[in-house]
């Protein structure tokens, strides 16, 4: 009896909290009719915004994958002074308000900023938006890779060494295949966070239509402009991407029982 009460409670909570809003969005959008929706999606501004979102997310994924694996490697394998501290603050980008992140970029690189002489224009530019996106999605790959890396026994590598494999070859052929599932999972999380970034990108880029406007910023502006169909249709596209990401996440999620037994 208690079992069914608990299951019912949880299912209704999750349904009201997670599913109902999604349904509301889709139903509201569909009221406009497919032609109107298609027209709203294919406006040049909307397409440009989607394109910028995708480019920023892909660049951010690439940078964070390489640097994430590198940082995870150093945090797990190297011994150095202050390691504990670094370990603790890696999560900081995850909890700092994105608005603050964007604001910091402006303070540093804005016209009267600390580093206003910096050769690359970062404030109110796509380069700056990339920088803040990279920052907010920094911890994901690191946090996924670290425990897997820590669980690999040194003998795996030593075995490869005695068989004549160099450090690089050992990394590529022995470690990377073991780390790969966790890296992929981290990549998907990074992708989700980068695609969805709004506050930091809005502040850092200034939200100039067609130039520094990402899909999320487009939705925000469309709402302000009372362009409801534009806002809802791009929101639904972002939502569909999220569902795709969710499916990837479930497919890739490290499974407890499948762990290698050495």
């Amino acid at each position, binding site marked *: 009896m208690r079992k069914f009460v608990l299951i019912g409670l949880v299912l209704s909570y999750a349904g009201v909290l997670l599913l109902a809003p999604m349904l509301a969005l889709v139903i509201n959008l569909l009221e406009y009719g497919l032609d109107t929706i298609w027209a709203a999606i294919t406006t040049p501004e909307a397409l440009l915004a989607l394109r910028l979102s995708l480019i920023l997310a892909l660049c951010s994924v690439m940078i964070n994958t390489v640097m994430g694996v590198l940082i995870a490697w150093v945090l797990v394998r190297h011994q150095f002074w202050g390691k504990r501290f670094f370990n603790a603050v890696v999560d900081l980008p995850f909890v700092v308000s994105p608005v603050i992140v964007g604001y910091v970029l402006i303070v540093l690189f804005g016209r009267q900023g600390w580093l206003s002489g910096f050769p690359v224009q970062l404030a109110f530019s796509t380069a700056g938006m990339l920088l803040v996106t990279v920052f907010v999605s920094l911890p994901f790959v690191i946090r996924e890779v670290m425990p897997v890396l820590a669980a690999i*026994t040194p*003998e*795996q590598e*030593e*075995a*490869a*060494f*005695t*068989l*004549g*494999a*160099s450090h690089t*070859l050992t990394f590529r*052929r*022995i470690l990377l*295949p*073991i780390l790969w599932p966790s890296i992929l999972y981290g990549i998907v999380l990074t992708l989700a966070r980068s695609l969805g970034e709004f506050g930091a990108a809005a502040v850092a880029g200034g939200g100039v239509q067609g130039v520094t406007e990402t899909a999320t910023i487009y939705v925000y502006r469309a709402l302000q402009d009372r362009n409801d169909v534009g806002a809802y249709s791009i929101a639904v596209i972002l939502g569909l991407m999220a569902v795709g990401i969710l499916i990837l996440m479930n497919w890739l999620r490290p499974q407890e029982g499948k762990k*290698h*037994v*050495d």
Partner: protein
Amino acid sequence: MSINLTNIHKGYGAQVVVDDVSLEIESGELFVLLGPSGSGKSTILRLIAGLTPLDQGGIALHGRDVSLLPPQQRGVGFVFQNYSLFQHMTAEQNIAFGLEVKRVPRSERQARVTELLQLIEMETMGKRYPHQLSGGQQQRVAVARALAQRPEVLLLDEPFGALDVKIRAQLRQNLRAIQTQLGVTTILVTHDQEEAFELADRIGVIDGGKLLEVGTPDQLYRAPKHRFTATFLGNANLFPAHRNGSKVYLGDQHLPAPPDTDHLTGQPVEMMLRPESIEIALNPTDLKGSVLGQATVTQLAFAGALERVTVQLEDRVLQVLIHPAQSRQLGIRPGDRIWLGVQEYHLLATNHHSGAG
């Protein structure tokens, strides 16, 4: 000389793990490093393979000084205690890995893998992943992987440690057969004296980072130089004794001094009596060897093929192993008075005690 260790030394801070070890191993020999856990035997293996950097000393393999070379360039095959097979590769891929690294052409590689799978009697299991193999099969794949590049030297770190007793005996014979067939110089590390006896051409006994002595299994069992060797390789009854002239004095008794023990004259020694070399009789005239004296039986215990008899000879307690048939024939029970004799005994210098350092 195939493997040559010269005064090698390894420490971590103040803790000495390998203490000035020198050793020469012949080509084609199967050498067993025997010692309790923490004695430094695995570290010696890792030093030879280049997995642990050397503090002092030199290592030469087939006359080539490898002391400073990274593991990749030492040309040794290494079998780890937990095998460390690459979990994401099949048995075949594991075996072929070293050949791939050496850029051996594909056809040659394939031939070598097939050959090795035959050698370990796993022809049909090449496509399986490690987690689909039993412990014994994983171990054999690890051996094949280590042998793939035809290494000059094969190093095995407790290769039977993780297996159950039955499989262990069978795999020992397999390994010995493979080693003899290929003639590869091999060092095997173990803490199991039975394993060492069965496999070794020679055994090196190691304790507290020191190589105490080296010899054939027979030499070390019958005539150890160190008390540690005497007790670590089987059971031993050890009693303080004294050698004088051509006699050894054990309390009131005296026995003829064993040959080759002249250098022990005049110093305190210990007499080692293996339990199976002691005889029991009801009358002193029935004893074949030298008479030790009259003793009291305190305990009888069944011990498989033999029976363990605990006896008290004056203030000394001895363990004796006799055949159950003989025990029945004598009809001894606890409390009985019997005569003890000894056919084979050995003397070791008392000051060598401190092997455990």
